[in-house]
């Protein structure tokens, strides 16, 4: 169930990959360096690069994410986890540098960016009456939906009668079939039973092996350990990578 990072950014895990405020590389920083060169973590090796991403509430956050890598995001409620994901998906006004495969986000139109960097919120929205109307390509969706236990007839189910757990899983599939390169998940299993949690983790793990990169917000330390080898901690709007205690176990 562990999700393997295909490439560890900037050499090894103890290299600073996530910082707030000034970007300083621990390995290369010397006490009196007059001019800091470009932070090395912005090399072209990672899929998603985030530098000094900030909003009115979010303090500057920097990290990068490789293809096939999963980072768990933890932190108390209201700390800014959702704001971080929304800022990356460019749903709120924000400043900073975000790059995908070396392409600057500002050079990519918003709708195209969100197809490349998918975001599944904790409470997904619905704009039509039935399940089927929310999927652009129902045939593509059925295969994935079947894995999560949805029958073919689910297409005509009214949204109003779905449970919270069903909605979460449908929203996940809705985002997956667009085939994003990065997926931002906001507590995708919060209201699911143990069996469904395992199925969802399995599904994402399969996609990770195929090269998808994932930021996964979870309150469950056990889940964080199962799905990710790196972890971001968000607290009072500041985003930092937890280093040392992580990874807890090698896969």
């Amino acid at each position, binding site marked *: 169930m562990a999700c393997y990072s295909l490439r560890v950014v900037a050499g090894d895990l103890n290299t600073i990959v996530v910082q707030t405020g000034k970007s300083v590389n621990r390995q290369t920083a010397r006490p009196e360096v007059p001019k800091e060169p470009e932070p090395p973590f912005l090399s072209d090796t990672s899929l998603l690069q985030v530098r000094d991403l900030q909003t009115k509430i979010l303090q500057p956050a920097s990290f990068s994410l490789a293809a096939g890598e999963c980072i768990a995001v933890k932190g108390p409620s209201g700390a800014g986890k959702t704001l971080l994901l929304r800022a990356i*998906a*460019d*749903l*709120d*006004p924000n400043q900073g540098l975000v790059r995908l495969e070396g392409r600057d986000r500002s050079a990519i*139109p*918003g*709708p*195209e960016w*969100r*197809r490349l960097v*998918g*975001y*599944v*919120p904790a*409470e*997904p*929205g*619905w*704009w039509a009456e039935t399940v089927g109307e929310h999927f*652009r390509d129902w045939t593509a969706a059925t295969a994935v939906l079947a894995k999560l236990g949805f029958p073919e007839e689910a297409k005509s189910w009214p949204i109003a009668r779905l449970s919270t757990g069903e909605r979460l899983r449908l*929203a996940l599939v*809705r*985002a997956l079939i*667009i085939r994003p390169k990065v997926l931002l998940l906001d507590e995708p299993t919060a209201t699911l039973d143990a069996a469904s949690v395992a199925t969802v983790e399995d599904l994402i793990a399969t996609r990770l092996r195929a090269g998808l990169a994932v930021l996964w917000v979870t309150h469950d330390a056990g889940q964080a350990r199962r799905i990710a080898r790196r972890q971001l901690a968000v607290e009072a709007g500041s985003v930092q990578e937890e280093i040392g205690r992580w990874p807890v176990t090698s896969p």
Partner: protein
Amino acid sequence: MASYIALSYLDLALASVLVLIDAGLSLIFGLKIHRNLLIAAIRMTVQLTLIGVVLTALFSLVSPLWTGLAVLAMILFAGQEVMQRQDRRLSGWWSFGLGTGCMMMSSVLVTAFALLTAIRPSPWYDPRYAIPLLGMILGNCMTGIALGLNTLSTSLMLRRASVEAQLMLGATRWDAAAPVTRDALRSALMPTINSMSATGLVSLPGMMTGQILSGVPPVEAVKYQILVMFLIAGGTGFGAVAAVLGGVYRLTDARHRLRLDRLAAPQAV
């Protein structure tokens, strides 16, 4: 126009007793509206007397400049009214500018269309035709735009999750806001549709009854009323579409984000 009966000030004074009776009822039942009622009645009397004087002057001048200024003043008052009818206004100049701009565009356009094609007074800007016509179109356009913009901002807030869900899946701002846009346009045009279907059965429009009272044969008055109804439908339609699309444009941005932060804080009641 032989059957036109002029009113004396004594006639009006007699009718005003009815308002005083209303005020008396308010006192008896403790409604506490007698003050507002009297102020409103006085305002109405003063405003209409003034407009009577202004119109007399305008009609005798037949000046494009003064007619234009009167039209501008009417549109600015209507813009103020649109702004006042919003639960949540757009922030900054947009709250006044958007509604006012759209009303100006559509009501002037439709009035000019009627003056140049159907009515054709000489000169075409003769205030005796231009001002009442514009007033009727503007009044309805104002109601439509106020309703449309109010529905737009409140439903964008209520249905934020559904609009953003579409944005998250790569929809453009126009596609994501389409259901809300449709609702806003429907509510903007509903009063016009309702009044067209009820006219003649439930209500006799003021303009038509006014013409009949002043001696115009009913069939001729009806023709005028039908023309005015079409003009109102057109003016409200253009104005509402422009205002609602302008509202969607303002409440989203070039990165296709929903920008509810561009609504001003709710007003203290």
